[in-house]
């Protein structure tokens, strides 16, 4: 009763991956159920919340809508791929420092989107960040601290919180 499978190869967080996936499987399910990468979250499955945001060839998409087969030959970055040998990615660190993380469930997607916005627009304003994050729902924070964190990354300022 499963759909037919096909073999795909792609780059995931810098490493070559090849695996067989059912052709109707979505990238989110592939990441979570096939690859055990649960950092990317399911929260709506309809592209309305952004919790499953990943980067594909440098652009963010909702992985719940993307057919896994379409990953073939492309380059994916997930939340697990942001960490550097030095520690957290600057955007992740800013989210931690500014109290942008409460329950944190939407944060992997939010951070992926924020990182992409900042990389593509080094002079990102608060208003542009608000627009750019419109596809990422958060029920805990009211977005204020998220935007504070994004602003801090852009301006290079810290907020002096304690670990």
């Amino acid at each position, binding site marked *: 009763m499963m759909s037919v499978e096909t073999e795909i190869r792609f780059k995931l967080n810098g490493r070559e991956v090849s695996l067989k996936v059912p052709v109707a499987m979505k990238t989110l399910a592939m990441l979570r159920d096939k690859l055990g990468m649960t950092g990317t979250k399911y929260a709506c499955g*309809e592209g309305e919340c952004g919790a499953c945001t990943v980067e594909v060839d440098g652009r963010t998409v909702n992985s719940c809508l993307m057919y896994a087969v379409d990953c073939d030959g492309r380059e994916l970055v997930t939340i697990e791929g*942001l960490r550097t040998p030095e520690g957290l990615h600057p955007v992740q660190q800013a989210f931690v420092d500014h109290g942008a993380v409460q329950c944190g*469930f939407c944060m992997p997607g939010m951070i992926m989107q924020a990182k992409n916005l900042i990389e593509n627009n080094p002079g990102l304003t608060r208003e542009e960040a608000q627009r750019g994050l419109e596809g990422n*729902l*958060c029920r*805990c924070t009211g*977005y*204020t601290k998220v935007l504070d964190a994004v602003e801090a990354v852009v301006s290079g300022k810290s907020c*002096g919180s304690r670990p």
Partner: protein
Amino acid sequence: MQETATASPTVKETLIGQRVRKPDAPDKATGKTRYINDMVLPQMLIGKVLFAGRPHARIVRIDTGAAQKLPGVHAVLTGKDVAELRFGFVRDNVALKDKVRCEHDEIAAVAAETEEIACRALELIEVEYEDLPGVFSPEAGAREDAPQIHDRFPGNKSLAFEFRHGDLAAAEAASELIVDNVFRPHHVTHCCMGTSCAIADFDHNGKLTIWTQTQYPYNYKMDLAPALGIHPGDIRVIQPPVGGAFGSKLDVYPYEPIAALLARKTGRPVKVMYSREEEFKASPTRQAAIIHMRTGCTRDGVLTFRTADVLLDNGAYTSWGPTIPVIMMRTTSGHYRVPVVDFKAQAIYTNNPYAGSFRGYGNVQTTWATAQQMDMLAEMVDIDPLEFHLKNAQRSGEVTPQRSFLRECALVECLETAATASDYSRKRKEYAALRDAPGRYKKGIGLASSIHNAGGAKIHKSDGIGTILKMDDYARVTVITGASEIGQGIDAVITLIVAEELGVPLEHVTLVNNDSDVAPWDVGVHASRTTFIAGNGTRRAARKAKAQILNAAAKMLEESPEDLDLRAGSVVRNTDGAALIKLERVLRQMHFQAEPELVMVTDYYEPKSEPEGAAHVSDHSAAYSHAVHIAEITVDTLTGEIKVDKVTVAQDVGRVINRMGLEGQIEGGLAIGLGYALSEDMRIENGMLKNACFRDYKLITAPEMPPLDLHFIESHCAEGPYGAKGISELPTIVIAPAIANALYNATGVRIFDPPMSPEKVARAIFERCAPAGSGAVEPRLAGTAA
């Protein structure tokens, strides 16, 4: 952010009021945190639930034969497997139903090797229904000839509440001005980003381990046990990280016993997790109500009485929703100085979804009414609403008719601070004068306030918390506490308090708070209580440990314990702060000396509050607090869209503990209130939810979030930890009526049934402006466009 008060200076650097990060934030920000939704256990089966998909019906026949035979299916359960296992406050619920009473009634459940197989099995279950006439509003349910929903509850009557105080007839006679309105707060739902999920597993001694998102792990056992027919003592509750809760996990909901029943039947762990659509349909709502409220005052603007006659849409079953009058009556009787009160509430069973608790519990609904009536009365008296509020505001030491003792009351300070910061009085006059001038876009400003319990609420026999604190040979501290973490940040608060008391680095504190077999009892995370209650519990435990350590250190150093303190990882002399010995050395010496001792202390903290009681006359919280919101908005009078330009908040927080966490709670709570006010709306037609998705159920998004100007008033609560009060519900409670009052200021229209959606606002403005019966839009358009 304004800091309105600071602690008196001490030689010691204090962490109280600083910005402290959540200890779990790095793992959450990197995707490392394993939420319950991410968990997979060896041998785990997937459970799926068959929902009725109709509001009221008799089940004529269920055939599960084909589903049972499907390869990969391990169990199929129906109502006949659980017939006598009733649960809920009034035992009106059961995990799998023998009759359909609402759209999401659970009819059958399957455990299978994969989700795909489980879904296929559900499709193979044949159910024959005989639809029954339904009840879709409390008014309809209260009618004599209404269809009966539960045999045991004649007249569809669920819970009822009453509170009376003072001579109403005399108060009415003395009232020169009376407002009289019907408010209809609507159904909204929590929308936790992590959907509902439970994993259950039985061992061979019959003990159940349930991994779940519950906010109240201890009473949860008591509530879950009857749904399974087991003893509460045979349940172990484990709380992995959750994707939000907001009150939605303060009761047992059927998916939890279903997971356990399937686990018992199969002998394997079973996970039940909702899809977003299932979450919308099957998780609890905020209680919908019809509030007929009257408030009177003298021509001088002194409140004389308030009455509320409340009809609650109970929905099909009784969870926390219909208990909200406990708080509604506190607001009705205590929101400003109301000498005479008459409150009654009746919940009526309907075939609609049923309500649980939701941040702001009852007070969101009541304040929607009281805060608008305050605004209306001020206009009738013809004084600035600020002045009207001030005239009727309670002061410290006052007692409300229900005996809420306002020991430290900062309402006046909240009102004055918010009004000054926003330039309220000037703007209100200016905008009102422009209301009927030409122009499509109108500005408005609105003020609202409320009161809420801020030191727990003793609705159970105890409102206490158990704490165990232990230290190891390296001066690492472990706090084992009943306090649940659902994202709100009690982890940071407890860490901060331990570090403050014991002088250890924040990162040397570990929290164990997610296993009912390990951590001691607590009521649960609700009622804005956790910083207050768990903060006190932690502080008391830490002080016991500190006393033990200082006594031991004093002996070692031949000093007096009163002259010693713990700072920066050392025992120091109080007078000059000189470090005398490393803390970890003291701990090792204590441990390995001739008469060895370990630092491991216990504490049970019970707040000084009175049980709610059947008469509802009691000082049921250890503290009360106020908040004032002033909303500034721009209304597009043609499309009806409201843009919130700014919100000024002044809230009595008692004392700031973790400034960053406090801001986050206020910002986030306010966003939930904004959604309630403007866009969130469960569209339930004949018992069926029509917008079970984020596309049509609209949460506030980042671009809609206004700038906030937060002011923390520090009233220094004597009973609170370091003076703190509970804070997290008021931001959700106050914002909606502030916007409603701003809408009136801008346009002269009032909305009584939230949300203030563009369509509702446009229609109200259109009807106010178009000549009655003319049906024309042209005059209005020509007059206001461009």
